[in-house]
Every structure is written in structure tokens, then in C-alpha cells.
């Protein structure tokens, strides 16, 4: 928060700002003191905002040509691809944009896990972020149903059937979700309605996410509290805006690479076959970004148990700030946690891999080991490591290690003691 009260220079500006302090808000956002040591892992917030806006803009345009009806949806998507001016481009940006969105959000989440950004006093930022993530998954799932291909139809069938695992009322809930006795036209039309709604809910949560961020300010790679503004901070504009813009440019190159050179590589060819309720494709897989959770679901030989563990894998993240008992935020100073962090990354990647494979033999064994380890990490390893780990000394300020002539953070404390 800028310490000084902002006063617009022009008379009109002052008149307006007294009535609606938008200019004060703009001034706060430009001057917002940001830790000067933020690395490129911190640029994904801006990248994610870009992704959301891209999805909203391309989505609004696609909705002008798409027809939400079981008999017409598949043909209308082909119509977009073949007849609509630049329709192919807009649809490929939208479909690959979803993947890019998840790629960025996973990096953003693991950044938070590594540098302890979810810890006090930033728990609310973390929880709002998880709510955004849940809505993203709902939006992505419903969006994937809209082209009404085979994967759309059977993906929708499998996911909505998850709710039938609920004891007693499960079947009524599933029928209610469908609006029919199977996934059918009423399901498609309501998914379209909700798919249009959710991005705007996400946008609202993004505002709260940033608002909650601006109360304590950014975490940073050394994970210490800093004074704001001070020699440890720089104004958001132009220092962070230009860095974010550069990172965004690199991200857009990768994005464009997919859109122009491999637009279908992340999708599934079965979705270019129109939905057929009589035939299930031999091998149903969700989109890549949901695979780890799918692997967890399939690793349990019990229907309700599998569903509970799959949702549990996400909901356990909500209590993460209270499961991690360590006082030190950044993994830079946590030699033991740092190793477990990377094991978790590998674990999630393995789960994602086996989620794409048939649920049998070695893949099933791997999925079970991966699932057990995932929960072990959060329920046992994090709390225990927090107590037992001997953390390395943390610098008193961001400038410390640099000004004392050593890039080694662990040296900083010792040098300080001499002074």
C-alpha cells in the first residue's frame, strides 16, 4: 500500500477522484512496492490474467457461431473450423488456451509450494487461488463437452457418474445434473450456460485474489517479511510490468507454437467423431491437466472410495497452510523440505503419466504407490519435517546477502553477527 495519500494533479481528476477514487486505485497499482528479488517464477500471475482474458474474448466470439444442441453442436464446431472467417484460429486459440491456462496455473501453484507463499499471512490468497483452480476445472470440463464428440460425451458421462457414488441420493443428483436419464441435450445446454458463466466468476475471484495479495504484499524467493516501501522493494511499474511483459512474450511464443504447428496434439482424435451413446471409446482419457486426479480415482478398487480420494486430493490443499508446521517460508532455507518438494513434483508427473495409461498391471501399481505418496506428503511428511528440520539461517533483509559481498544466503547471518 502506498503510504502517502494520492492527490490527482488536474482539477477534473481531483473532482472525479473525490467521488470515485479510481485514480487512487490506479496510483496504488502502479506504485505498489514489490520485492526487488522476484524471479521469473513470479511472472505467472500476469500470464494467468492474460490466459483468462484470452479465453473470455475468444469464448465470446465462439459463442456467436456455436449452437448448443445435441443434433447441431458437432456440426456447428466444424462450421466454425471451415466456414467462419478465422474461425479455425479462434477455436484453436480457445482450445489450446485452456491447456496453456492449466500449464501456467500448475507452475504458479508449485511456485507457491516451493517458496511457501501459502503460509501466514497469505492463507486467504491461497484459498481463493484454489477456488479459482476448482472453477477452472469445472469450466474446462464443461467446455470440453460442448463440441459433442465421443470424448465429450463419454467424459461427461464418467464425470457426472462420479456423483452417483454418493450414498442414497447419488442417483437423483446425477439425473438432476443430466436433466434426462443419461447425458443428453438438456445436459449440453446447461453446460453451455454454465461454461459461459464461470469465467466471470473466476474474474471476480481474481480481483479478490489480487486484493488479498496487496494487503501483505508479495512473498519473495527468500521468503522473509520486508518493509514496504524500502530499499528491498521497487515500484510495480515499470520494473515488474516490463519483466512480466517479457515473460508473457516468451509464453506467447510457446502458445502460438501449439496453435499454429500442433493445434491437436493436446486433444484426442476420438473427439472428432460425433457423440454416440451406444459405443464407448476403447480408451477414455480426460485432458492432460486432469490426469493425476484421474489416476487417483482409478487406483482405488472401490467406487465411493475412489471418488472421495480424488476430491480429497484437491481439498487437502485447502488446509495446507495449517499442515505445514515450518516457520521458515522459502524452501531455499529448508534442505529437507526442498528434497520432498521435488519428490512431490515427480509423484504428480508419474500420476499424470499413469492416468493416461490403461488401469492394469504395472500402471495400476504405480498409480497406487503415487496416490499413497501424494497423501503421505501432505498428511505426514509436511507436519513432521516442519518440526524436525534444521533450517539454514535466513537473511534479515533482501539486500543483506548482496551488500555483505556474498551471494550465499547462508553467509548473511554470520556477517551480520560480526557487524
Amino acid at each position: 500500500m502506498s503510504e502517502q495519500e494520492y492527490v490527482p494533479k488536474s482539477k477534473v481528476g481531483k473532482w472525479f477522484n473525490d467521488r470515485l477514487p479510481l485514480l487512487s486505485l490506479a496510483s496504488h497499482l502502479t506504485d505498489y512496492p514489490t520485492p526487488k528479488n522476484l524471479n521469473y517464477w513470479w511472472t505467472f500471475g500476469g500470464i494467468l490474467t492474460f490466459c483468462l482474458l484470452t479465453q473470455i474474448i475468444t469464448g465470446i466470439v465462439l459463442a456467436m457461431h456455436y449452437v448448443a444442441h445435441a443434433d447441431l453442436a458437432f456440426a456447428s464446431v466444424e462450421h466454425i473450423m471451415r466456414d467462419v472467417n478465422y474461425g479455425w484460429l479462434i477455436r484453436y486459440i480457445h482450445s489450446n488456451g485452456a491447456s496453456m491456462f492449466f500449464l501456467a496455473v500448475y507452475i504458479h501453484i508449485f511456485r507457491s509450494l516451493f517458496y511457501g507463499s501459502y503460509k501466514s499471512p497469505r492463507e486467504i490468497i491461497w484459498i481463493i487461488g484454489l477456488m479459482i483452480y476448482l472453477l477452472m476445472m469445472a469450466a474446462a470440463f464443461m467446455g470440453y463437452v460442448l463440441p459433442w464428440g465421443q470424448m465429450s460425451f463419454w467424459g461427461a458421462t464418467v464425470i457426472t457418474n462420479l456423483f452417483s457414488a454418493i450414498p442414497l441420493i447419488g442417483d437423483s443428483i446425477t439425473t438432476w445434473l443430466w436433466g434426462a436419464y443419461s447425458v443428453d441435450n438438456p445436459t449440453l445446454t446447461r453446460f453451455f450456460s454454465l461454461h459461459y458463466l464461470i469465467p466471470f466468476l473466476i474474474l471476480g475471484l481474481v480481483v479478490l485474489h489480487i486484493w488479498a495479495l496487496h494487503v501483505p504484499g508479495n512473498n519473495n524467493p527468500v521468503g522473509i517479511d520486508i518493509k514496504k516501501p524500502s530499499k528491498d522493494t521497487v515500484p510495480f511499474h515499470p520494473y515488474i510490468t516490463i519483466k512480466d511483459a517479457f515473460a508473457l512474450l516468451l509464453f506467447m511464443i510457446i502458445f502460438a507454437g501449439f496453435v499454429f504447428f500442433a493445434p491437436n496434439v493436446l486433444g484426442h482424435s476420438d473427439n472428432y467423431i460425433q457423440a454416440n451413446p451406444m459405443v464407448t471409446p476403447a480408451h477414455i482419457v480426460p485432458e492432460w491437466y486432469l490426469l493425476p486426479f484421474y489416476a487417483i480415482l482409478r487406483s482405488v478398487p472401490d467406487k465411493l472410495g475412489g471418488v472421495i480420494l480424488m476430491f480429497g486430493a484437491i481439498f487437502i490443499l485447502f488446509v495446507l497452510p495449517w499442515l505445514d508446521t515450518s516457520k521458515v517460508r522459502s524452501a531455499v532455507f529448508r534442505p529437507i523440505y526442498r528434497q520432498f518438494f521435488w519428490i512431490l513434483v515427480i509423484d504428480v508427473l508419474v500420476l499424470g503419466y499413469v492416468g493416461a495409461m490403461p488401469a492394469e498391471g504395472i500402471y495400476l501399481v504405480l498409480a497406487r504407490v503415487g496416490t499413497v505418496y501424494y497423501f503421505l506428503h501432505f498428511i505426514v511428511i509436511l507436519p513432521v519435517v516442519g518440526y524436525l528440520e534444521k533450517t539454514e539461517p535466513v537473511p534479515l533483509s533482501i539486500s543483506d546477502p548482496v551488500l555483505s559481498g556474498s551471494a550465499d544466503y547462508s553467509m548473511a547471518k554470520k556477517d551480520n553477527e560480526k557487524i
Partner: protein
Amino acid sequence: MDKSEKKTTRRDFLFTTSYTVGAVGLGAVIWPLIDQMNPDKAQKALATTEVDISQIEPGKSITVLWRGKPVFLKRRTQEEILQARSVSLEELPHPEKDEERVKSGKDEWLVMLGVCTHLGCVPLSNKGDYKGWFCPCHGSHYDLSGRIRKGPAPKNMEIPKYEFVDANTIKIG
């Protein structure tokens, strides 16, 4: 205590009744918004299907669509019926006699929803460890009576309401 009891007067009564009436009103408004998502009259109208079964040879099956879901109609051979009936109930995760799953006197006809009770995929016929059906999605094995034997599905495949209109016609629903 006396004081607080004294305070429970007309104003509290007005608050309580206002909240109650408000809650009932809110519920009355929300319910139509929720119930509109349940199957509508057009969906319910599709509730019955008649199927001609005269062309089905023993050992073969056909699949028809009923309420948007596939229904398997299998004409079983004597051998298959015996195999389905030789299983003891203790071996079954969801114990049901084969006799309970067919109409008596029409033992060769197995009519059931071709929907895996795990997550709703359509199982493949003549596949799996029990020569009945096998669900390719998550690996559930069903026997010749459509009963779950192995895998994540919790129940046997459902038997819909159906009747024999005449010797060659089955009405489902």
C-alpha cells in the same frame, strides 16, 4: 435470567415470524430454480420402447436405445444359463440369483441396462474373465447374468422394468 425472559416480547416474536416467513418465501422461490433442471416432460415422454426380438439367434444379443441409454437384450444358450446359475452367491460382490434377474419361463432372455454401474460406460459383450461383459473404461468384469464379479463397479448391471407384450415383442419401461 429473569431479565432476559422479560425481554422475550412482541418484538422477538415479530423477528422470529419475519425470519420464518422470509425463509419459506426464499425456499419457494429457489425450488423452481432447482427443479427446472430435473428431467422435463419431453424427456419423461420417451419412457417406453418396444423391441422386436424374433430375429435374435440363441447366443446373440442386440442393443437398443431406451431413455438415451443402451439396453442389452441377450438370448442366452442353455449352456450359458447353466454357467450363470452354477455360481454360489458367496462369490458375488452384489449377491443376486440369476433367476431373480430374468422373467421365469423366459430364462433365455437377459434384458438389462448396458451401463456399467461404476461410471456409466457401455461394457463390451463376450469379453472379460467371466465371458459376460467387460467395461473398457476402468476394468469391471461382469458374468453371463450381468453380475459384477471383479473391478471397481459396486453393483450388477441394472434390470429395467420390462414385459413381454407377445412372444416376439418386449416393451421396455
